[in-house]
């Protein structure tokens, strides 16, 4: 199989370039990551992130033939050749397929991704009914790989001001949590022209999420809550 991989080493290269590799997947090499790992064994200058290799950690998010995904859960066989691998679009490149996620995590932290509840904690734990717990399904599973935010045009244009789909999915995760007491503050924080409302409902986020989540639906839910709040 033919691969064309984005290469950039800021220490020697002035400009990035695409490097071609030809390698046949062996039996047992099912996912794209398996093949990239063997390419790395041949050419150890190739740099990328990976950790759990089973779609849980979100480290190996990359742009595969123009579409963001996790290399470790992308079957290598069906991919169109040459398989073009690039770093996540719009994120600053550190080297090869490794990108700088600082801005992404800054936006994530800005929605205060933790339970806020000033009431005295009960002896054991804050309980939740099974129905309330169900409201977090489709939200808590996010692994923060960055596939959605990196493929969102609104994030491309306003990465500093627009929270982005990943952050907004997390915002909804805490807004929807029955144990959280800061719902109103959280909603107020998203009212401005930029933080949430730069979303143009393009829905690339939902299209590419490797975990099958729907950030666009979470954004819609927050919008409707904001509308309800305002009356």
């Amino acid at each position, binding site marked *: 199989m033919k691969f064309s991989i984005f290469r950039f080493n800021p220490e020697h290269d002035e400009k990035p370039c695409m490097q071609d590799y030809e390698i046949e997947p062996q039996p047992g090499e099912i996912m794209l990551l398996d093949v990239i790992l063997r390419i790395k064994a041949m050419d150890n200058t190739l740099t990328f992130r990976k950790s759990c290799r089973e779609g849980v950690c979100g480290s190996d998010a990359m742009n595969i033939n123009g579409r963001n995904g996790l290399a470790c859960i992308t079957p290598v066989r069906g991919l169109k050749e040459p398989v073009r691998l690039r770093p996540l679009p719009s994120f600053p490149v550190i080297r090869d397929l490794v990108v700088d996620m600082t801005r992404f995590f800054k936006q994530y932290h800005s929605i205060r991704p933790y339970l806020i509840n000033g009431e005295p904690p009960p002896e054991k734990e804050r309980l939740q009914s099974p129905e309330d717990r169900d409201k977090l399904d489709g939200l808590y599973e996010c692994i923060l790989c960055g596939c959605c935010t990196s493929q969102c045009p609104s994030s491309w244009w*306003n990465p500093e001001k627009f929270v982005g789909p990943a952050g907004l999915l997390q915002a909804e995760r805490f807004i929807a949590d029955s144990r959280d007491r800061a719902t109103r503050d959280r909603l107020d924080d998203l*009212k401005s022209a930029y933080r949430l409302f730069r979303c143009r409902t393009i829905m690339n986020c939902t299209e590419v999420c490797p975990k099958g989540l729907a950030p666009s639906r979470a954004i819609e839910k927050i919008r409707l809550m904001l509308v309800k709040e*305002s009356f």
Partner: protein
Amino acid sequence: MSGLRAWMVQRVSAVYMLFFIVFLLAHFLVDPPRSYAAWRDWVMSPAIGVSASVFGAALLAHAWVGLRDVILDYVRPAALRLSLLGLLALALATLGVWFIRIVWLGHG
């Protein structure tokens, strides 16, 4: 204008314009004006005057939110952005005045 308010203005104006356009089309299909005088009388009637003016306001508000979104998305330099927003506001206000002249004063 906050993001929330702009978004609501955009949605509400869209719904109103949709209904008004359907009403307008239905009117022209069912009972088209037979002459210029009949058309003029129809436009000059208070009910049409008011609903058409609301349509005009909805159209201008909708255009403002939509084009402002485009400018906020793509135009980064503050000076250029402000001048474009100013030009847009001026253009929309002119259209508004023109609209009032036609619908309420009867000349174009």
